[in-house]
């Protein structure tokens, strides 16, 4: 399993109800269903991913998350997860609000735009960073709302969101001790567990 998903599954309690926003091919929900008897639903928009979920027996709902989650009842899930999708949302702040309304706690992961490689790319070349990890150019990228860990944590303070856990990993989702020294400079992906 992808290392970030492994970190996340460790935070999910057995027998709980989980909503995965942008659930991909259903890998995490499939694992949680088999190993933790989790009652899970995934929202997804990519057709191939939806078929993969159906074939894996994962509950998948075709839905554009940007259209809103108003039909989902407040506090109806134990956990709401969104991995690597916050930066493609039109209004990440509203989505986080909605996630916190629907779930008792939420897990979000996103790429850190404050990573030293992004900073130096922009500083030295004067161009928007393009890398193997973030291969898009500015005009065709789905990632329209990049932020740094610091930015996200500032949003949490402004919105009264409590950070329960934070793990910072590199772009291969490995947990390295030195990332903890200066996460906003060295970490490439953050995994936050938040609540309100």
């Amino acid at each position, binding site marked *: 399993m992808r290392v970030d998903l492994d970190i996340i599954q460790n935070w999910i309690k057995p027998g709980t*109800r989980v909503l995965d926003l942008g659930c991909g091919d259903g890998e995490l929900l499939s694992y949680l269903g088999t190993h933790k008897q989790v*009652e899970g*639903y995934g929202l997804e928009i990519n*057709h191939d991913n*939806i*078929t993969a*979920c*159906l*074939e894996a*027996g*994962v*509950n*998948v*709902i*075709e*839905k554009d998350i940007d259209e809103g989650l108003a*039909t*989902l*009842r407040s506090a*109806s899930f134990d956990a709401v997860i969104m991995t690597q999708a916050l930066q493609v949302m039109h209004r990440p702040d509203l989505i986080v609000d909605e996630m916190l309304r629907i779930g008792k706690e939420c897990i979000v992961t996103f790429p850190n735009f404050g990573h030293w490689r992004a900073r130096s790319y922009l500083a030295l070349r004067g161009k928007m960073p393009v890398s193997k990890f973030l291969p898009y150019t500015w005009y065709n990228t789905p990632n329209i709302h990049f932020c740094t860990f610091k930015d996200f944590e500032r949003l949490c303070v402004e919105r009264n969101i409590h950070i329960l856990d934070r793990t910072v990993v590199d772009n291969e989702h490995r947990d390295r001790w030195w990332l903890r020294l200066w996460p906003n400079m060295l970490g490439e992906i953050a995994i936050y567990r938040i609540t309100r």
Partner: protein
Amino acid sequence: MPTSIPADSVGLVQPQQLHFDQPLALASGRRLDSYTLTVETYGTLNADHSNAILICHALSGNHHLAGYHSMDDPKPGWWDSAIGPGKVIDTNLFFVVGLNNLGGCHGSTGPNQPNPDTGMPYGPDFPIVTVPDWVESQARLADRFGIQQWAAVIGGSLGGMQALQWAIDYPQRLRHCIVIAAAAKLSAQNIAFNEVARQAIRRDPQFYDGHYYGENAIPKTGLMLARMVGHITYLSDDGMREKFGRDMKSGTLNFDLSPQFEIESYLQYQGERFSTTFDANTYLLMTKALDYFDPAASYGDNLTEALHGAQCKFKVISFTTDWRFSPERSREIVDALIDARKPVSYAEIDSPQGHDAFLIPIPRYMEVFGACMKQVGADIPRSKPEGR
């Protein structure tokens, strides 16, 4: 007309008539003392009767789902694109059951069949039947085949409503429920269109208040109008534009009232063809069954409550340009199922064909449907090894 039967067809098939003597109490308070259901089956029922699939038909459908009745048959059954060996509903794996619902006009007990009390066709005296009535009669059909639990109950449109009703009325008797292009109840607009269709039939002088059989008449005009208005709601604006646009039969305007645009003659052709093969009283009954369908009504108008007891896995599929039962109506079902904590998946298929899309083998639709059916197949309990 098939010159040879395609390899992925169920081939030549014959309907069978099954008679039921146990009286059926109807939602209306009336009762059918005995009745006949016309049924077709494909594939083989396995030893523990666990591979059976029920297909519920929509407004104008019937028991003839797939294959041909003879080599002279111009067309195969109405869902031949989905049912057959190696097809999405694979008859190598599943035993597939199709029936003509009560009140239908294709051999099951209905207005055009003789009333045993009088020997004359029931006509307008045939009771109004509802979706729960049909489910009850289908449960008895399952009993007749010795099917305790369907591997899946599947339907599109009005058929999807029956599948949903099954999950509510007989939670233990199905493992999967596949609801396609349906709604949990009709909207005012849906009912309005149905009423136009009914008025067209009932105001036809050849209708004779439903007693046209004895008058040697058929309310052909009314039935044709009903079908024409219905057909408009089955297509989408985009689909019509794509297929017909403003194309004319001849290049110039005639300045008379004869049909000139292709869409006019298409609708007339569809309506006329339908009026010679379908029974007007059945059409009235089917539209009433649609209007009355509202499983949440007996649960305080709360669909979540209505679905609370369901035990099967649900799959819901809708089509983007369907405005008869739009994706939004399917999402209402999905939201209620999530709220009721039931396993559910939902796909919204991009298609220009409107409501009719559920009958068309659109590649992504078949892919999604196929993935759902793979699950249905995987959930067939392995039969116990013999002996020991």
